[in-house]
């Protein structure tokens, strides 16, 4: 089949699936709605109708949040895998999850009365700070950045920060407050959070789409790229900024959701091949599909209780991860 046609079919199917999932997620949950309520809530809103209010104030921001975060996590995962030339990489490798968790813990310890808004911003800074630290450590050794050292530095810093925040949480009896963060979920995403952080996610996604053609170069070694007349470090630095923005914000909003960034890029590559100009858009859509779907399942398993959506994603993610590791082993 023609490559462009194949890409279009996959992308359009992904988008249709996303629209269906979004409609389902607005309708279903602890409170079931019919189509006309959904329609009215969007186009003919009466703030007195409690069902319409649930849809407007809780369901819709939640779905939009899931879409943005799915796209952001999956996109930054694809970026990390390509920049580090490591198929097992995701944004966690830059220490972003652990940095956000540490700042969150610290803000609970020192400023227990801060609003959710403020703690979110704290953890965005934590994520950014940690990834910059990891980045500096990994570029200390040689004049050029080595992907292996980046991964090692990321793992070391992650383990260190995780130890500090776990320790603090135990000492200060914060386990309960932090639990929601460790399981992750989009249930608490609000309009005000979306207004504050949503535009940044859009900026990150825009940079990502602009970077996509250059990512193809990363199939080659640094030497080859340089001898083709391109400066790889510029691409790397832009890519890392993009990862910090996208996954820093997502992780701060919904917690340490593992595996979205790991598995979605692989599914996209499996479907359409090696061209990042196609992989990136498809990854964004599929990432949104996965999180919206996981969020929907999380609500439906045991209503009115919410099953943590990080668990659902891990349930899908772990078997896939093992399959991937096995497949890689066969190729080697």
């Amino acid at each position, binding site marked *: 089949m023609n490559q462009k046609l194949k890409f279009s079919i996959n992308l359009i199917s992904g988008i249709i699936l996303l629209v269906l999932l979004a409609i389902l997620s607005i309708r279903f949950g602890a409170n079931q709605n019919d189509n006309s309520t959904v329609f009215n809530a969007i186009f003919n809103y009466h703030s007195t109708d409690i069902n319409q209010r649930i849809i407007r104030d809780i369901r819709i921001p939640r779905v939009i949040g899931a879409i943005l975060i799915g796209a952001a996590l999956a996109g930054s995962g694809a970026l990390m895998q390509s920049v580090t*030339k490591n198929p097992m990489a995701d944004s966690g490798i830059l220490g972003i999850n652990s940095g956000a968790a540490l700042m969150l813990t610290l803000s609970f310890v020192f400023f227990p009365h801060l609003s959710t808004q403020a703690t979110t911003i704290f953890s965005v800074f934590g994520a950014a700070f940690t990834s910059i630290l990891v980045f500096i450590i990994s570029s200390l050794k040689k004049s050029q950045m080595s992907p292996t050292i980046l991964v090692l530095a990321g793992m070391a810093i992650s383990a260190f920060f995780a130890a500090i925040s776990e320790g603090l949480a135990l000492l200060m009896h914060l386990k309960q407050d932090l639990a929601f963060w460790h399981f992750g979920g989009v249930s608490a995403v609000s309009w005000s959070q979306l207004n504050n952080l949503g535009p940044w996610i859009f900026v990150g996604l825009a940079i990502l789409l602009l970077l996509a*053609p250059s990512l193809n*170069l990363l*199939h*080659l*070694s640094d*030497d*080859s790229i*340089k*001898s*083709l*007349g*391109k*400066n790889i470090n510029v691409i790397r630095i832009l890519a890392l900024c993009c990862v910090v923005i996208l996954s820093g914000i997502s992780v701060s909003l919904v917690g340490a959701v593992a595996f979205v960034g790991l598995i979605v890029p692989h599914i996209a*590559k499996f479907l359409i091949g*090696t*061209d990042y100009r196609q992989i990136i858009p498809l990854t964004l859509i599929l990432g949104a599909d996965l999180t919206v779907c996981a969020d929907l399942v999380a609500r439906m398993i045991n209503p009115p209780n919410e099953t943590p959506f990080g668990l659902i994603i891990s349930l899908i993610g772990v078997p896939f991860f093992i399959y991937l590791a096995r497949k890689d082993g066969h*190729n080697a």
Partner: protein
Amino acid sequence: MNIIETKDVCVSYDKKLTIHDLSIQIPKGQITTLIGPNGCGKSTLIRTIAHLLKPCEGVVYLDNQNINQKKISDIAKEMAVLPQTNNLANDLTVQELVTFGRIPYRKRFSTLSKEDHKKIDWALEKASLKDLRNRRLSTLSGGQRQRAWIAMAVAQDTDTIILDEPTTYLDLTHQLDVMLLIKELNEKEHRTIIMALHDLNHAARFSDQLIAIKKGVLQVSGPVQDVITKDNLRNIFDIDARIIEDNSKPMILTYNRWRGGQV
């Protein structure tokens, strides 16, 4: 005329000085091969000439211009470089790999031009890869894969092609295929070839000029016959060689380790 010259170049790698005061001239339109024992600085010199390493002293001239004052995007139109290990990009198809060779000529976000397609086809043709163009690199033999990488350098359409040990890890037949391809590029298309080789007989048979290095210091350079001599081989490789002539090229038959005059 010299396409590349180095003048009093010193290169250090990992804080150790690996090349000392090296001045060489590489003539245009010929095949020049660097030889020397492992760790002698062959690869370092190749990488320095290819503008992948910066000398800490001295200057590299490309076409009589200081290479450091040129833009890397312009250098990419003058010389193509094939680094030593190319076990990356195995998910790509041959055609996708060869298409990378056109990057120096493409504007951002542009699609392939007619000229690009022509050069890609022609590079695939040269490397006898037309039938394999849609195969993934991971499904090819080592020799075919190396030809695909050379095809990428060919598609870059540069006067000079630099190759760092292009025959490493290949079996006898595939080594010969690669050497014949390189020779053809030189003879039919007048490309200047600069490479590092381990196999002295390949170096002697396929090169016009040889440059011998030992411990980062230039030992001898010049036409093949002048470099492949009993004395030079003893001095550079510590071997005691028997040299015969084959098709007016020197050929090293068997050799023994040089043990201070006793064989």
